[in-house]
């Protein structure tokens, strides 16, 4: 049984990894067909993976309700929101879900008048807290913090139209910060992260990194 539970997954990862890595350097028709097929399969599998996220969220809120954890009453609204949206989506403006998606249905209405405004507003709340943090905690405590602070101030003023009115050299200085020191640091980070990703990929292919197998035997 261990063969099915552990060895086969390691073989699948190894074969897929090696095939796909070498495929890149083999511009043959067969190699391209293989790439087309496996990426197509990958898209379909990823479609099912959505339900892992759905299950995790519902499981979390269902447990909250079941165990009557603090604030459990609010979790009911998650199920209510999801239930009503899914119901409208399946109803599909009277055409039902096995037909093509209809336009201008209650499902779309829910999206534009609940999800869009609530989602957009949720993240805009951070604007207030960033301003508060700028006032309370953004301090020139050390030389490094001072460099960070000065760069932030120049960029903040240099990237908005008022920057030119305050001092006409501000925008060019901000542009220089972005395209020279910022760019160099980000390139260093990019190369570092890429080397890390390649190393992790190699570890996956050769079975050293097995976190994707999950727990158990």
């Amino acid at each position, binding site marked *: 049984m261990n063969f099915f*539970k552990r060895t*086969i997954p390691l073989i*699948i*990862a190894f074969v*897929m*990894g*090696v*095939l796909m*890595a070498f*495929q890149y350097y083999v511009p043959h028709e067969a190699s391209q067909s293989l790439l087309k097929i496996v990426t197509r399969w*990958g*898209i*379909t*599998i*990823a*479609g*099912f*993976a*959505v339900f892992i996220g759905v299950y995790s*969220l519902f499981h979390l809120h269902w447990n909250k309700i079941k165990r009557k954890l603090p604030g459990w009453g*609010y979790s009911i*609204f998650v199920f*209510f*929101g*999801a239930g009503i*949206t*899914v119901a409208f*989506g399946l109803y599909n403006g009277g055409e039902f*879900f096995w037909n*093509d998606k209809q336009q201008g249905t209650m499902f779309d209405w*829910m999206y*534009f*008048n*609940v*999800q869009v405004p*609530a989602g957009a*507003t949720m993240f*805009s709340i951070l*604007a207030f807290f960033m301003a508060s943090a700028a006032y309370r905690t953004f301090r020139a405590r050390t030389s490094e913090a001072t460099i*960070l602070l000065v760069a932030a101030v120049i*960029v*903040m003023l240099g*990237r908005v139209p008022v920057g030119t009115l305050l001092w006409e050299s501000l925008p060019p200085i901000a542009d220089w*910060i*972005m395209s020279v*020191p910022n*760019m*160099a*640091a*980000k*390139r*260093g980070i*990019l190369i*570092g992260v890429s*080397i890390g990703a*390649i190393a992790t*990929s190699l570890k996956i*292919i050769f079975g050293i990194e097995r976190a*994707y197998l*999950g727990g158990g035997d």
Partner: protein
Amino acid sequence: MIKNREVSITTWILVAFCIINIFFLVTGKLGFDAKGLGIITAVAFTLAMYSFLYKDNPVFKIAENLFVGVAMGYWIIITWFNILKPDVFETLIVPFFNDTGNAPQYIVIIPTLLGIFMLLRFSTKLSWLSRWSFAFVVGLGAGITIPNFIHAFILKQLSFDLLITSNILDNINTFLILLGVVSVLIYFFFSMEHKGVIGGVSKIGVWYLMIAFGASFGFTVMARMSLLIGRIQFLVRDWLGLIQ
């Protein structure tokens, strides 16, 4: 005492919100239709979210949880109509039971099975089958990452050949970029104690990183403020009609 005050604040805000909207509906500023009622709903959610700024409260929590539920519901339905329906239902299942003029694409059984196996992650007895699906996806991802990252993010990013020009300022910038990339990489990759030459170069790397983090902070402030501007534009333009 404080609770009473908060209940009274909430009640007054709700009353004001209702009066304003009734006024808009009666005067025809907002139509009594899907669009008009949609704007009122969107405003209600926007204000409910902003109520968090005063303090965490039940109105915010209800709106937040409803939003999470609606977003999840939307995700499920969009995945059905965009992926599962065209890729599995219409290619494999419908032609199997009905004569659509197209033969069922039996090859789709493989990713469908792997997709279903993936969901067995939550089963106590059959969760091992999900490993096959994860191994397929993770192996595929690892395989395509290696050559593409080497080419696009390492080799391409390390080619400085086009940057040497006759302009002295450009060449200084090129030198500064080179210095920055090297010093940041040294800062990250040398796990030994940062002393001597390595320490000096690492210090330069830290300065570069601080400038980059400062720039990122500035841009993050910009981004969050833009989101807020958008929401306030919605409130004063689409709802209150104070601006065009």
